[in-house]
């Protein structure tokens, strides 16, 4: 139970099985960790303040994430659903623009040029 929440919305970002037209085994995530943590906390707080959220949880995987597995989990709770959906959308936009996390594809049909 989340106090005051009439809407609890979760988003799972899942690794797709194809990248650049090639089948994937998964994605390898790296980050500039101290800055990534700071940026994630900041964008979550900004969303909470702007949309009067009851809570925000944001988890991003690092290291290898296989296809169909979740690399990102976002949970927001608010009084009404519109605020929750808007907040998740903004959180994702901010994350993709500002957070120093990088993905590197690990292809199923790995070739010498893949590195």
């Amino acid at each position: 139970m989340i106090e005051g929440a009439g809407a609890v919305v979760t988003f799972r970002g899942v690794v797709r099985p194809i990248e650049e037209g090639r089948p994937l085994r998964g994605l390898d995530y790296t980050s500039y960790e101290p800055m990534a943590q700071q940026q994630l906390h900041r964008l979550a707080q900004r969303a909470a303040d702007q949309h009067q959220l009851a809570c925000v949880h944001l988890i991003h995987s690092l290291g290898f994430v296989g296809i169909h597995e979740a690399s990102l989990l976002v949970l927001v709770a608010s009084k009404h659903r519109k605020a929750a959906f808007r907040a998740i959308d903004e959180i994702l936009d901010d994350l993709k623009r500002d957070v120093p996390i990088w993905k590197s594809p690990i292809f199923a049909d790995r070739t010498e040029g893949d590195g």
Partner: protein
Amino acid sequence: MKINILLFGPQAKLAQRDRVTIELGADTTVKQAMLTLRDTVPELAESLNVSRLAVNHEYACADEHLTEDDEVALIGMVSGG
């Protein structure tokens, strides 16, 4: 003064290293550091157009001045989420 710039992800791959040291004047700005980085590592030139420097874990403005004690990182081509 010498500044180490940390590299990550595809930019580390382009430069084939995870940091680059550049030589700057004593009173250098972030903008000047980016220009020097472009000259020092030409492989990064194109990606610098969509990159920012972070100084001590914060995105820095072009006119911010750098010191030798700053932790500087090149942040570009991010792909989280």
